[in-house]
């Protein structure tokens, strides 16, 4: 555990010493902030219009639910933004070590491959969690001016954390394949998009196959969290997904020890 912690610390330091972490966080917050502002503004506008309409026709205005109109689309958008941004966190994890040749040093050190993978992944998740925590400021605005439901927000953040951690594990895996950070980032985005869109092709497949393939879609498992339903099966899915990604990264790193040897 101490060794995992050592890797984690080293990785965190490298994030925050170089400007990369700040740029990524600022980029993420800026885009999320713009979306938040636009969604909230259109909600306020809509409430106003509906009230006006109701007064004009002397009807009772329909209920305007903050969660339906603001937080739910907010989480949906944030999941898409994370898809684009998170590969920037993971692209360097192993690709950089490979490029600099430091990976051999690490592999010959008393640190095991599993400890290495866990430490680096934990650092990426920690950075991502920081990003998520900063977005809580937007929720603060909602509490300041309205009455949002705290449990729904918790559900959305839990989903965000799980889906983001799944993106990160894909990024981790792809950075073990190459020493080129750009290739690692681009292939990560491509694969996340594939896991994202996989649910859309199910209509063209036979029902049984479609249902099976649909189960692999990252976004389909996210939808319940987004609307405020915490379902244990989705949590199990994301955790299995992350576990599988970590395991594959481990296997990929291990394979470099014997690959090509007779």
């Amino acid at each position, binding site marked *: 555990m101490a060794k995992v912690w050592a890797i984690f610390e080293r990785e965190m330091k490298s994030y925050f010493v170089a400007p990369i972490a700040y740029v990524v966080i600022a980029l993420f917050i800026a885009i999320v902030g713009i979306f938040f502002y636009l969604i909230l503004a259109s909600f306020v506008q809509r409430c106003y219009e509906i009230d006006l309409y109701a007064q004009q026709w002397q009807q009772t205005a329909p209920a305007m639910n*903050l969660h339906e109109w603001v937080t739910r689309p907010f989480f949906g958008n944030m999941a898409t933004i994370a898809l684009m941004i998170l590969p920037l966190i993971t692209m360097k994890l192993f690709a950089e070590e490979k490029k600099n040749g430091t990976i051999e040093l690490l592999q010959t050190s008393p640190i095991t491959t599993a400890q290495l993978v866990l430490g680096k992944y934990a650092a990426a998740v920690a950075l991502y969690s920081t990003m998520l925590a900063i977005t809580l400021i937007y929720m603060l605005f909602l509490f300041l001016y309205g009455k949002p439901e705290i449990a729904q927000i918790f559900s959305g953040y839990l989903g965000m954390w799980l889906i983001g951690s799944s993106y990160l594990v894909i990024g981790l895996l792809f950075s073990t394949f190459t020493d080129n950070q750009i290739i690692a980032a681009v292939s990560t985005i491509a694969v996340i998009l594939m896991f994202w869109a996989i649910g859309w092709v199910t209509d063209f497949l*036979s029902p049984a196959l479609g249902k099976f393939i649909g189960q692999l879609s990252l976004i389909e498992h996210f939808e319940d969290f987004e*609307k405020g339903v915490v379902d244990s099966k989705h949590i199990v899915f994301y955790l299995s997904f992350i576990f599988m990604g970590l*395991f594959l990264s481990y296997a990929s790193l291990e394979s470099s020890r014997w690959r090509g040897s007779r």
Partner: protein
Amino acid sequence: MIQWKQYLPIAALILIALMLLVNLITQQWSMISWLALTLAVASFAIYCWLERKTVRQWISTRSFRYGSNTVALIMIVLGILGLVNFIAGRHNFRWDTTQAKLFSLSPQSKKLVKSLNHELHVKAFFRPSYQQPIRDLLEEYANQSKRFRYEIIDPDVNPDQVKRYQIENYETLVLEYGNKIEKITKATEPDITNALIRVMQEGEKKVYFTTMHGEPELDDEERGGLHHAKTKLIAENYQVATIFLAEHQQIPDDCSVLMIVGPKKDLLPNEYQLIEQYLNRAGRLMVLLNPDQPDLRALLSSWGFEIGDNTVIDISPMGQLFGAGYAAPLVTSYPEHEITRDFNLMTLFHLVRSVTPVNQPRAGITVSSLAQTSNFPNSWGETRLTSRVKFDEGQDLKGPVSIAAAAEKEVKLQVQGSDNDTTAAVRKARVVVFGDSDFITNGFFQFQGNGDLFLNAVNWLAEQGELIAIRPKQAEDNRISLTTQQSLLIFWLGVVFLPLSILIIGVVIYVHRK
């Protein structure tokens, strides 16, 4: 030099790809896919045999051993995770965090969906911007049972489906269960669940016609018979049968609507009793009376109908256009009711008496008029039909005269569940009374809207909606209104200041380090 056998593994791969492609397109294992698979295996086997020396050498390398070990391990891990997820999918715990429990079905709905015996297909015709709430709702049903399948269709881009299911409004749901179809135009949980009950109910709806009181014959094809009405009912998926009430202990349970059409003799006391009991079990009754014939007043007055001792006269010129006499009012005015909603056809009643809703019916009963003749002085209810017909103040009923009415009363029933728990269900007893029976006989059935009005009334009676009382859920109303200052604060603080300050901190640290 590359020899021909080098191409064998490539050929095998191409064949496998072909097999997959064929399977995906035809969605089944066809002759071609089997053939492709066989050829692929064969060419790979031939290659291995011809190149056995190389293959053996390759297999004995360390990297092959490790590689195959790793692949096997990955497969095992995948298998275990697949199993874990399968079990987790079966035994999941769902927590709806919304305050109004927007995404949870009521226990009744859950139980009902779980009891589906075979597949139920729901087609929801919704425009894209209205699809989200119905998707959420149907997803909750689908979560309860694998047999519940749904599909959301944009009616504007799928005219073939719209035509096939005869969709007339946006936001229509079609439930298909076996060969039964149920359509609803309100998509809330109570509506969907009650539609489910209706569509799951076995057997067709049965309409019983009473006999032995001088009613017209169902199979009579002459002017005075009911052949047309019967044929039309059968075409609308009803079973039609006759019943001699006096022979029965109670009205059969499969009776969806009991019809009493123009009795020339009054019903026996025990027949009245049977009908009373039937109505108290939320039965459905339609009575067609005629002037100067038994009026079943003993039964009908307690349900809020006032049966007039008169014959309605209509001297408006419109009726004459169709060759109708004074004693055959042409009706064009239909007060608002579910039966007459969007009904815009003329109906003709030959010799009709007034049927008026009483002002204050017994508690729980609502009565309303269905059809009215034209206004006074063109129309009135004549009490003494003699050679000289005229309105007598104080004796006759001033027009417009109501000639049909419908009553409804909620009845609470205890429904025994499968595991011995009783749930309270609310059903409605319904009664429709017309002051004339001729309008559905062969001679008049096809005149303008006569047949349609009759069928509308039967359909309304046979409808079994409101079987289970579920309170519809309402999302919390937690709107936000912002002043310009507040909005600007959010913009500058959240969108500009926050990301910028993070960036500046980063730059400062970076420069400091350098």
